[in-house]
C-alpha cells in the first residue's frame, strides 16, 4: 500500500461510479435485481423512489460493512451482513411510510424485498469487505445509480406507452400523449403494463448496449 493519499475523486475512484452505470451495470450486465426491476416499473415515480431507496441501502451497507470489515468474525460474516442490510431496509421502509405514503403503498413488498436484492449482498461481498470506506461508498453510489438508471429508463417507456402519462415525484401524473391522439383512435398498450413487457424492455436495453459496446458480448 502506498503512503501517498489518493485524492477523493481520483480517476480510479471515479471509475467506481461510472463503470456500474455502463460496462458493469448491475441489471444489464450482471443480471442482478431483475425481479424488482420488473415489478416496480409500471410507473415512473415508484421506479425513481425505488432507485433512490436501493442506492441508500447500497451506500450505507457498503460504508458500514467496510468500516467493520476488520472486526467481523469470519464465521458469522454473512449473518452480520444480513442484519445490517435488513436494518437499513427497515429504516428505508419506515421513512417511506412516514414521508411518501402513496409511493410506499405502490412499492408494497418490494421495499422489504430490497434485502434479497442480489446487488446489495453482491457489492458487500465483492467490494466493501475488501476495500476502504470511501471507495466502498462510491461503489455503492455507482451500483445503486446503475440499478436506478435502468429502472427509470424501463419505467419511462412502460408508463409512456402503457398509460400515456409520466408520473414524477411532487408533480403527479403528467399527460404526455395528447387527448387528440386518443380521439383519432390511439389506444394505450395495456400489455406493456404487465411484467413480461418489462423483461422485453430490459432485453432491448441489453441488446442496444451490447451492440454499441462489442466487448461486452460473450464469446
Amino acid at each position, binding site marked *: 500500500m502506498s503512503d501517498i493519499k489518493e485524492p477523493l475523486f481520483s480517476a480510479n475512484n471515479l471509475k467506481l461510479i461510472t463503470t456500474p452505470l455502463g460496462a458493469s451495470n448491475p441489471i444489464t450486465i450482471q443480471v442482478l435485481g431483475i425481479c424488482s426491476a420488473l415489478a416496480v416499473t*409500471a410507473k415512473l415515480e415508484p421506479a425513481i423512489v425505488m432507485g433512490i431507496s436501493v442506492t441508500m441501502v447500497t451506500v450505507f451497507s457498503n460504508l458500514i460493512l467496510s468500516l467493520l470489515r476488520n*472486526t*467481523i*468474525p*469470519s*464465521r*458469522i460474516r454473512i*449473518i*452480520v451482513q444480513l*442484519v*445490517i442490510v435488513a*436494518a437499513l431496509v*427497515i*429504516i428505508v421502509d*419506515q*421513512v417511506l*411510510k*412516514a*414521508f411518501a*405514503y*402513496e409511493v410506499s*403503498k405502490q412499492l*408494497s413488498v418490494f421495499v422489504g424485498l430490497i434485502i434479497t436484492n442480489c446487488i446489495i449482498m453482491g457489492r458487500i461481498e465483492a467490494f466493501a469487505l475488501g476495500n476502504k470506506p470511501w471507495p466502498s461508498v462510491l461503489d455503492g453510489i455507482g451500483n445503486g445509480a446503475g440499478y436506478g438508471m435502468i429502472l427509470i429508463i424501463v419505467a419511462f417507456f412502460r408508463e409512456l406507452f402503457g398509460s400515456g402519462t409520466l408520473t414524477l415525484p411532487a408533480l403527479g401524473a403528467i399527460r404526455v400523449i395528447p387527448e387528440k391522439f386518443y380521439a383519432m383512435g390511439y389506444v394505450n398498450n*395495456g400489455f406493456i*403494463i*404487465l411484467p413480461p413487457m418489462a423483461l422485453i424492455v430490459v432485453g432491448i436495453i441489453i441488446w442496444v448496449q451490447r451492440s454499441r459496446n462489442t466487448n461486452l458480448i460473450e464469446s
Partner: protein
Amino acid sequence: MDKQGNKYTFLYASVMVILVAALLAFVSESLKERQNKNVEVAKKIDLLKSVNIASDATNAADLYSKYIGDDAFIVNAQGEKVEGDAFKVDLSKELKKDPAQRSNPLYVCKLPDGTNKYIIPVRGKGLWGPIWGYLSLDEDKNTVYGATFGHKSETPGLGAEIETVLFQQPFTGKQIFDADGRFTSITVTKAGQSAGNVHAVDGISGGTITSKGVQAMLKDCLSGYEKYLKN
C-alpha cells in the same frame, strides 16, 4: 482477543443485535405518529371518494371534518347504535367474529345540498389477497349513491380493475333491498348480463374470482346493517 474464537463471535453478535434493535425501535417510535396519520388520511380520502368528493392528502382532513366530522357511529347486528369510535374499528378483526357479535361502523355524510348519505365500509377476499371498499347509500337507505373499492394484490388489468371508475360507477343507483323490503345485496354478474337489473352490476371479464369476491364481500358486510337500515 482472538477474533475467530467463540467468545469474540458471541460477544460481537450480541452487541450488534442489541445496537441494531435499539436503533430500529428508536426509528419506529419516532416515525409512528406520522405513519398513523398517513393511514388515517388515506382512509378519509377513500371515505370521501365513496360520496363522490375528490380529495387528496392536503385537504382530506378538512373535508372529512366538514362533511362527516363526528357523525360516525357503530351499529350492532340488532340494528342498535352502540358506544364506540367507528373510525377506529378494525374491520378485518370484526369479520372474523360471528355476524351477530360484530360492531359495524357507519358514517353519515352531510352533503352541501342538505342530504345525508350513509357510508358503509366493506372488506373481503379477492383472488390473491384482501379487497375492501366503501359503499354510500342515499337518504332512503336503499339506493347506492357511490362506491369505491381497493385491493392489495389483484392481477393488474383483470381483478385490479375493481379500482377503476368503469367498475365502480355502475353501482350508483342500484338497490340493496327489493320491492318487498327483503335484503338482496348487489350481485356482480358476468360482464354484460346486468342490464336492467337494479340489484346487479357487471363483473370483470377475466377477473371472475375478484368479481365474485366483491359480491361476497358486499353480501357479508351489508347484511350486518340490514336491521339498522330498515328502521
